């Protein structure tokens, strides 16, 4: 599904390398987790993959289903099936959540040459999906993320994911700012979307999210590289001993 080879990325504005040769393959239908200390380059990886401005790829490649995505516009990557659940979902005052969702869904359908969803069809689907995420009608009407609590924002991200039905989902620190109950709800939402045709890359600092979203593969990232890869037990090791031991071991 996603194949990253020797990816080197620096900041556009200043002379600073952040990713220093990332190699990563996420197979179709699998859930991979990336863990790592602050500043290791986890979020940068998610931004570079989704096409945010401000980064410069100096070497390497990233392919989604065999197609190089690094030269694509962000919306083209989205239409190709890449989705990023933001660590800090953005507020858009005055734009209703529903309007936003519908514009996004139809923009992607249009880009893929599919017919746009009618208002009625759309409403039916969105209500169904919102219900399972405990998102009420009021939240659908309110402006995008404005005045939402941390938990509401993250649930809203998952709702967008459910509506857009991407192939490759990147979750950037989706657990940050969530209490246990909210995290469970979000994890349930994600688990409901797990599917043989859909892959996940779950970026997290802590192991606790992985109790709820069980990964197939866990990677440890440090100083812009994947330094260790293992099964779910690797996350537990981090939980018990912290990153220091692992980093010392690979150094």
């Amino acid at each position: 599904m996603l194949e990253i080879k020797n990816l080197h990325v620096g900041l556009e504005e200043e002379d600073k390398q952040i990713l220093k040769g990332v190699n990563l393959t996420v197979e179709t239908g699998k859930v991979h987790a990336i863990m790592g200390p602050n500043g290791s380059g986890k979020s940068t990886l998610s931004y570079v993959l989704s096409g945010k401005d401000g980064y410069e790829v100096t070497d390497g490649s990233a392919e989604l289903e065999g197609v190089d995505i690094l030269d694509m516009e962000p919306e083209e990557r989205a239409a190709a099936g890449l989705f990023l659940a933001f660590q800090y979902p953005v507020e858009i005052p005055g734009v209703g959540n529903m309007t936003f969702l519908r514009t996004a869904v139809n923009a992607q359908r249009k880009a893929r040459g599919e017919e746009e969803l009618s208002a009625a069809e759309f409403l039916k689907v969105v209500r169904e999906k919102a219900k399972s995420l405990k998102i009420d009608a009021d939240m659908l009407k309110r402006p995008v993320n404005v005045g939402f609590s941390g938990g509401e924002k993250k649930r809203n991200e998952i709702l967008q994911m459910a509506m857009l039905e991407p192939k490759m989902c990147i979750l950037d620190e989706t657990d940050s700012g969530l209490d246990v109950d909210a995290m469970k709800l979000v994890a349930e939402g994600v688990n409901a979307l797990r599917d043989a045709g859909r892959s996940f890359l779950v970026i997290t600092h802590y192991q606790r999210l992985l109790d709820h979203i069980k990964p197939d593969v866990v990677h440890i990232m440090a100083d812009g590289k994947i330094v260790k890869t293992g099964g779910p037990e690797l996350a537990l090791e981090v939980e018990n001993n912290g990153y220091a031991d692992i980093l010392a071991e690979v150094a």
Partner: protein
Amino acid sequence: MAALDDVQVKEGVDQETVDAVQSVGGKYKYGFETDIEIEYAPKGLNEDIVRLISEKNKEPEWMLEWRLAAYRRWLQMEEPDWAMVDYPEIDFQDQYYYARPKSMAEKPKSLDDVDPKLLETYAKLGIPLKEQALLAGVEAPEGDRRVAVDAVFDSVSVGTTFKDELAKAGVIFCSISEAIQDHPELVKKYLGSVVPQSDNYYATLNSAVFSDGSFVYIPEGTKCPMELSTYFRINAENTGQFERTLIIAEKGAYVSYLEGCTAPQRDIAQLHAAVVELVLLEDAEIKYSTVQNWFPGDEEGKGGIYNFVTKRADCRGDRSKVMWTQVETGSAVTWKYPSCILRGDDSQGEFYSIAIANNMQQADTGTKMIHLGKNTKSRIVSKGISAGKAQNTYRGLVSMHPKAQNARNYTQCDSLLIGDKCGAHTVPYIEVKNNSARVEHEATTSKVDDEQLFYCRQRGMDEEEAVALVVNGFCKDVLQALPMEFAMEAQALVAISLEGSVG
């Protein structure tokens, strides 16, 4: 006949060319020109021109005198220069002050007699000049609201729809030139009573040379049975459009009035100096909505309409209420301050505005709320959007007079910048002459945020769609104040006006 055929062939060719040009590079949808024979008054401005306009409109002597007084006054006035707009000096002698399609020399008796080319023009602009529902003898289906239209083409009114049906309700809706002939007592009483002849340079010029416009009279206790609208179209070259609108709402009357404007795409700037007067007696209510989409000039700032407009409502009666809503997307230069004189006790004035300036456009617009009566209330919501190299200024006055006990005003002024070469300016004037008055002013300036755009694009929208969405969100408070049909149009217009503003 042969000659006529030639003309028709040529017209066909022209139209194709125009369409082709539009589909290739034209972003301004209404930039086409109607190929029609036009009768001009001689170029320039003097007393004879004023006399000629009056004569063309078959006006009584008192009207001519009124015009001449305005003209003489205008000669002694100077063009104002306090607004934040910069444009080459206007040569007032290098303009035509009167242009009318030849086919309109004899006023058509009904819409059926109007030159098909003119009807075609309006059809192309999406303005229905046919009373289809009425002609078919059936009631319009529910939800399909009918709108009566007065269509003004260059200097003359082409026709007014639903006149008879409105007359049944006692509503007078006609061109101002007809009103001067048919309802002189009303015109004499109210014309210039809100915007005096001597008010300002452009209003005085308008008083001297206005050629047509709309007239509305809503009798006591009457709710106008449909929305009224005027559609202004400038077609002739080097011609100024000077229209005059007068709306009178008697005690307890209500009307919602819409105004739309477009002009062909030309590289020489054209002048538009209009005056709108609204008179509200006790408990009357007027909603006045404008979607202004004059040609804005090209990307280098060549051409476009200079829009110098004086609009004012006089809430004479107690508890009267006026609401101005404007969406200003066009014009090279906009100079416009729809105002409310809150004279009656408990009267209310509201002003909702979206002003978009892209490329080289300049807008200096806002409102004046003059609180004279007790417990008067006003509300101002202004959304200015600047893109390209445009300059956008909000200029507003809130004045609380000594007798305006417990008067209140709330002002919210938001500016949005797209890119880093444009400017937004807010110039609020506040005068408070009594201690019981309350004035609140909030102002914000923000940039279209890269994070917001990236968020939208990650969800699949392209950059322009993303900007349009964010900007429409920014304007929501104002868009909501527009009548439904207008709101949809305005929303689309916001997106079109900002095309090419990012990237």
